[in-house]
């Protein structure tokens, strides 16, 4: 590119701008398609990304630092024994492991009973990681070690078995075995979920897991929650857990199942990424439609300015000069549409995030994508009209006056 091409470029830009300004309304209507396309692309990408971030945060809050293990085991070994548990507990980054035993048993006091209460076996790690005790104390290592007959009850059981009485220190019979109430559980989302699912909430009661194993008559633990110190290392820790489990079950397939919220989040992110690409793809169809609009306007413009083109040729304009002039005009038109569209898209997604109460982050990649595509559309769809202008016979062009 020589220095004179640079003068030409500057000249073309100023000619294009003055021409666009002289045809404001038409230029605006023409770029509307591009504007809408870019707005749609940016808004869709930004909104999906904001929602993804929001969902990821919520899921992570739900327990990305937990790993659930379901170890149904093999025919020879149904579940994990206490020494396997100790092995898992010694793995790096493991803060604690709480067995997850859930039974449905009859509980009773002198004044009342509940036939189908949920009895859960837990240990101190459960209480260390989840804030569930409202009153009284949690289960401690001594309780699990010496199989103390103690329990914590939820609000439902407190109402149905100890109406108007302070339950702490009172006795409660679980499957006929007497337990001392040491604490009351706070209401949790889980209670609400149970109510929503089952309709009737029969109440929940937590005992030391060793006690629960006795109550159910099992020797093995088949379900547990592993609490992690650092959830960002979840993947590596899960590998180590899986290795330990493989060893425990002699590398037998399907003997256990490990589930982490983080892996769910990862899967969800993949799906949302695919969705973003799909939506952006659909939105870019409107960019193509916008490009056709630009092509149409440029063709009209070439016809209207036939005599101007002829005159410029008479004054020494080469075909490439004329082509450059029209190409730059459609490029500028398209990029202006793209930039306005970018502003609209950002505004729209900010508004949406505000309404949805999601955190709004500007997606620079979406903005540059939108502006880049609009520029490309301007060049691609401006090509044919510019070509036509440059090939006009100067005589026909001049005679049309």
């Amino acid at each position, binding site marked *: 590119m*020589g*220095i*004179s091409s640079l*003068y*030409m470029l*500057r*000249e073309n830009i100023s000619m294009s701008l*003055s021409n666009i300004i*002289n045809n404001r309304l038409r230029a605006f209507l023409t770029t509307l398609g591009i504007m809408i396309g870019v707005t749609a692309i940016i808004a869709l990408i930004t909104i999906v990304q904001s929602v993804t971030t929001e969902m990821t945060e919520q899921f992570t809050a739900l327990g990305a630092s937990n790993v659930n293990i379901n170890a149904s085991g093999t025919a020879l070994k149904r579940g994990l024994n206490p020494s396997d548990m100790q092995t898992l507990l010694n793995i790096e980054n493991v803060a604690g492991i709480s067995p997850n035993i859930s039974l449905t048993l009859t509980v009773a006091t002198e004044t009342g009973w509940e036939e189908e209460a949920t009895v859960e076996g837990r240990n101190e790690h459960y209480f260390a990681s989840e804030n569930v005790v409202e009153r009284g104390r949690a289960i401690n290592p001594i309780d699990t070690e010496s199989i103390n007959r103690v329990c914590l009850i939820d609000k439902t059981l407190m109402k149905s078995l100890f109406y108007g009485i302070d339950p702490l220190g009172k006795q409660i019979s679980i499957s006929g075995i007497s337990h001392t109430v040491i604490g009351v559980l706070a209401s949790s989302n889980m209670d609400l979920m149970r109510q929503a699912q089952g309709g009737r909430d029969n109440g929940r009661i937590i005992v030391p897991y060793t006690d629960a194993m006795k109550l159910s008559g099992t020797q093995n633990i088949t379900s547990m929650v592993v609490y992690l110190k650092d959830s960002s290392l979840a993947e590596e820790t899960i590998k180590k857990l899986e290795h330990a489990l493989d060893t425990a079950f002699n590398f037998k397939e399907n003997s256990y199942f490990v589930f982490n919220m983080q892996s769910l989040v990862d899967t969800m992110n993949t799906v949302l990424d695919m969705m973003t690409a799909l939506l952006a793809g659909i939105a870019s169809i409107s960019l193509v439609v916008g490009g056709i609009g630009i092509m149409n306007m440029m063709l009209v413009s070439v016809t209207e300015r036939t*005599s*101007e083109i002829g*005159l*410029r*040729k*008479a*004054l*020494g*304009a*080469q*075909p*490439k*000069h004329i082509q450059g002039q029209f190409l730059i005009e459609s490029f500028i038109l398209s990029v202006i549409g793209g930039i306005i569209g970018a502003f609209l898209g950002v505004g729209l997604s900010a508004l949406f995030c505000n309404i949805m109460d999601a955190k709004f982050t500007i997606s620079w990649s979406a903005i540059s994508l939108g502006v880049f595509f609009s520029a490309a559309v301007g060049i691609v769809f401006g090509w044919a009209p510019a070509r036509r202008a440059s090939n006009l*016979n*100067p*005589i026909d062009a*001049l005679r049309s*006056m």
Partner: protein
Amino acid sequence: MSEFFRMRDIVKQYQMGDELQTVLKGISLDIQSGEFISILGPSGSGKSTLMNIIGCLDVPTSGEYILRGRAIADLSPKQLAEIRSREVGFIFQSFQLLPRVNAMRNVELPLVYAGVPARERSKRAEAMLERVGLEDKLYHYPNQLSGGQQQRVAIARAIVTQPTLLLADEPTGALDQANGKAVLGLFKELNEEGHTIIMITHDLNNARQASRVVNILDGLLLEEAV
């Protein structure tokens, strides 16, 4: 005087529907450098068509045209544009100014295509507008100028690239007598400064201002002594 161009048996035909119309029927014409000639003929005789061929805006259907030693028939659109840019200045009956830019910008336009830097362009445009007596109208738009002033802007535009050949197609056709006279006076001056000038007209009195008059009738030339 050296030969400026030579034309031999130039024929120009147009396809009009099924009919082939022969507008120029074999024109031969030699022009020397520094000549001021008039081409005189009635409307529809082919004057403009001939002028377009001389100015390399159009190419003949057949015949030989050699401009300053170059055979025009072999040139590409780009090369023809370069010749128009360097050698030819056009002046039209209807002025042909761009309506949306001022006199300065109109005069600068040929310099844009000749690749002249912006500062140099405005210097030269200003000098040319002064040359045609419009130093106080530099930033006027065409619709703020009279016909005579517009034609003088067009002349400034035609001479700003210092072309060797000035081609004027009925330059006084749209002007009153006084303005027409002024334009013709300007041409004489430019001719004395060394420009080769070809002026097309259908007015015998105007034609007589030139040093040589050529008649064109129905696509054929007749030389006329002055």
